[in-house]
């Protein structure tokens, strides 16, 4: 097992291994997504208060969960990169930033579209919405900072520190609906009691959540492969790869 991790930390092996893993993850992601969509759009019952508008939940909630999950992965990988100087951790951290930003954007936009018919407003400055918007700015800050620094190892160190400071926002997002009196509803799944959501709505929600997680895995590996190509452009194995592909 330790040998496996040691091997994986080498960019060349990681590049090849990720290349083999991606198609399998993609197939699994597509499977979960199709079943989740079918279940969520056709089989799940209509909500007694919100009608069919609640079906936005099946993209909104997984996107919002992933926006926080990816941030923690990014900050965690960044910390590992800072402490042990593992190149691959730096690569994973920056590769997560773009996907995370896009999921945060998706959570905000679908939330806005859901808010209009339910609350009567596209946007309100409530604690949940505002802290999620700050999360988007944190992601954009990480990406901008990484691109602004020419030397990628220095850039990775700087962005990791920024990402770690931003972690303070994650519990704020999660508990915002409890700490403040928000228009946004409280949690129905991620709490200590049993989920207060109908099982027929919970199943498609969880299926979509798994699909989104697998999607992130696919994209982060694809991005990491690009990042490795760029960083290792002068090494022998990349040059061999280029010769073989041209």
């Amino acid at each position, binding site marked *: 097992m330790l040998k496996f991790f040691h091997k994986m930390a080498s960019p060349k092996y990681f590049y090849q291994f990720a290349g083999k893993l991606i198609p399998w993850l993609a197939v699994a992601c597509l499977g979960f997504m199709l079943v989740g969509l079918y279940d969520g*759009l*056709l089989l799940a019952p*209509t909500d007694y208060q919100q*009608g*069919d*508008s609640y*079906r*936005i939940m099946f*993209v*909104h909630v997984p*996107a919002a969960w992933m926006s926080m999950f990816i941030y923690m992965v990014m900050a965690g990988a960044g910390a590992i990169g800072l402490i042990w100087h593992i190149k691959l951790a730096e690569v994973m951290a920056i590769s997560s930033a*773009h*996907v995370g930003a*896009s*999921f945060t*954007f*998706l959570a905000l*936009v*679908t939330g806005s*579209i*859901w808010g*209009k*018919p339910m609350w009567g407003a596209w946007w309100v400055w409530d604690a949940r919405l505002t802290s999620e918007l700050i999360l988007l700015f944190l992601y954009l800050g990480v990406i901008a900072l990484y691109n602004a620094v020419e030397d990628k190892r220095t850039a990775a160190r700087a962005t990791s520190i920024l990402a770690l400071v931003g972690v303070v926002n994650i519990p704020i997002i999660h508990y915002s609906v409890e700490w403040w009196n928000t228009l946004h509803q409280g949690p129905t799944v991620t709490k200590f009691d049993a989920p207060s959501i109908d099982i027929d709505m919970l199943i498609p929600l969880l299926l979509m959540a798994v699909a989104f997680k697998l*999607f992130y895995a*696919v*994209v982060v590996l*694809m*991005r990491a*492969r*690009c990042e490795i*190509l*760029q960083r290792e*452009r002068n090494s022998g194995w*990349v*040059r061999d790869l*280029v*010769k073989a*592909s*041209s």
Partner: protein
Amino acid sequence: MKEFFHMGGYGFYVWTSYGIALLVLLANLLSPILLKKKLLSELARREKRARRS
């Protein structure tokens, strides 16, 4: 079928959300594919130049 697209009167909101979700997912998939293509052709050009000189 018509009922399905109507979504109890919320069709516009539901389908706009799913449409944007689809666009975001597609953009996420396309951008690394294009980036890899660009990188490989860049590196291939560099390799050619190196061989000539």
